[in-house]
């Protein structure tokens, strides 16, 4: 809450500043691989922030959040394949479809708690994954190439990688701001209260289910938008986008960065993907190094990297 110049805030804003400055670096050095890498990081950070809205703040540990990446991506891919290239059609439709899926999945999953909730969200995601695998018309498990990025009628040229990067960064920043407003609003207080003590929440007269469901839909919709960006970034969609390991990656990003804050998952996404990139340059078996590092963070820094910077709450 305090806006003091702590190490934690420094790292948080430092991370956002770095994200905003990556294209300058790439243009100065000609290292455009860096920008491609960071485009992916920014998009997945957005998905992780949306997951953390339900997981960190709402206590709803969804193990199927990558499904919305796939849904958003496939809406773009399928429309492009069928000749509808306009972003003004693709993007809103992707958001609506993601929201509808989240509504149905949430409405059923939120009747369960704990491990059952984790399992049922995973099951839904796997179902959607296999639907993707069976879409023969759209490439089945080979995936579907998108020959033209979403067209915004000359307003934005997404094929220009710098423009595209800044679109992603702008949407990530907007997401962070939106989620930050959300968690501090009356709605956010109810969501966090329901995580902390749902029984008490009902006793003071709050129908928790509808708030949790609303939150679930908001998170799914944001993640659907990340899926739209991911499809455009890769010029390709495939069922792999929504494989359960991808859902796991998103959870790791949030846990690694810190679930207690809005910005934690962004730090987690940057840390995880940069490490992955750096370590895989060193050895083929980079996961042997990454695994213990993750373990260490989870065991010794309860609040993730964010919590570590805060000066380690010992609770």
């Amino acid at each position, binding site marked *: 809450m305090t806006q003091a110049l702590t190490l934690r805030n420094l790292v948080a804003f430092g991370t956002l500043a770095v994200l905003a400055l990556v294209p300058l670096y790439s243009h100065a050095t000609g290292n455009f691989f860096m920008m491609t890498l960071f485009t992916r990081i920014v998009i997945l950070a957005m998905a992780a922030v949306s997951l953390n809205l339900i997981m960190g703040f709402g206590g709803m540990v969804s193990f199927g959040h990558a499904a919305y990446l796939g849904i958003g991506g496939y809406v773009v891919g399928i429309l492009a394949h069928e000749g509808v290239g306009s972003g003004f059609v693709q993007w809103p439709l992707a958001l609506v479809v993601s929201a509808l899926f989240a509504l149905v999945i949430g409405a059923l999953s939120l009747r369960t708690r704990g491990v059952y909730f984790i399992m049922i969200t995973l099951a839904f995601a796997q179902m959607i994954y296999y639907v993707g695998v069976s879409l023969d018309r759209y490439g089945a498990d080979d995936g579907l190439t998108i020959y033209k990025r979403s067209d915004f009628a000359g307003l934005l040229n997404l094929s220009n990688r710098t423009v595209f990067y800044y679109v992603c960064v702008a949407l990530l920043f907007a997401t962070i701001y939106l989620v930050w407003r959300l968690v501090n609003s009356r709605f956010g207080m109810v969501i966090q209260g329901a995580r902390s003590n749902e029984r008490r929440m009902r006793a003071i007269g709050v129908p928790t289910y509808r*708030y949790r469901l609303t939150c679930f839909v908001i998170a799914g919709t944001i993640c659907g938008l990340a899926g739209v960006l991911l499809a455009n970034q890769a010029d390709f969609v495939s069922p792999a986008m929504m494989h359960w390991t991808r859902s796991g990656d998103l959870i790791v990003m949030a846990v690694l960065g810190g679930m207690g804050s809005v910005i934690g998952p962004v730090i987690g996404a940057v840390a995880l993907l940069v490490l992955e990139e750096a370590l895989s340059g060193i050895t083929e078996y980079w996961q042997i190094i990454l695994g213990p590092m993750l373990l260490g963070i989870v065991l010794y820094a309860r609040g993730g990297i964010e919590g570590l910077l805060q000066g380690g709450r010992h609770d």
Partner: protein
Amino acid sequence: MTDAIDPLLSISGLSKRFGGVVASDNVTLQVKPGELHAIIGPNGAGKTTLITQLMGEIRPDGGKVLFEGEDITALPTWQRGQKGLARSFQITSLFLDFTALDNVALAVQAQAGHSFHFWRNARKQAELREPARAALARVGLAGREDIVVSNMSHGEHRQIEIAMALAMKPRMLLLDEPMAGMGPEESAKLVKTLRELKKELTILLIEHDMEAVFALADRISVLVYGRVIASGAPEDIRNNAEVKKAYLGDGKKTAVAHG
């Protein structure tokens, strides 16, 4: 007497069994507006189960609950909260990672219409914070507002429980052993607070602290094995032979009446 006044809460024929255990055995009792009605009884008599049914967290097998003349037997918990039934929990049930003020402000918010407000910072809304501050002050926690609840003492938790119930501006308080685990000094303070509250509120009080019960209650019902064995003014209950037997046993075993 006040027999002409319609009861605020009316329980008739309430029954609940868990397997072979009878938790509520045809419980019938009425609480009149403005009354402090205490329910006493040995452990396992079904007192907490009764409150849990009144709040709708457990459905009774049979019987009816009327609140302000309206049948609320089938209403979900949150709607009962909206209608003005506020409970405190025997085992402290708070939002532990929030501050004391956040806890109570959330109770205020719950009564201030729906919470589908996504934008304005709830912690900066005076219409939530001020009534919450007032409720905390009432239970003697002024100056402790900004402390995270998990760092506060058990006695303070009990006080926050009551502050939250108060912040709901209830028609009726259901207090489930508010003095459980409190020291004598804290208990005495709470008795004073409750004496103030009963001037404005109807209260159903479950309590093991007999001193507190007899100091506060207008009427007392005695619950044993889920059954109301006696109901009446404190002096009648004190002299009731059946109650003495239930509490003191028939000379062989002594029922323990401590939480």
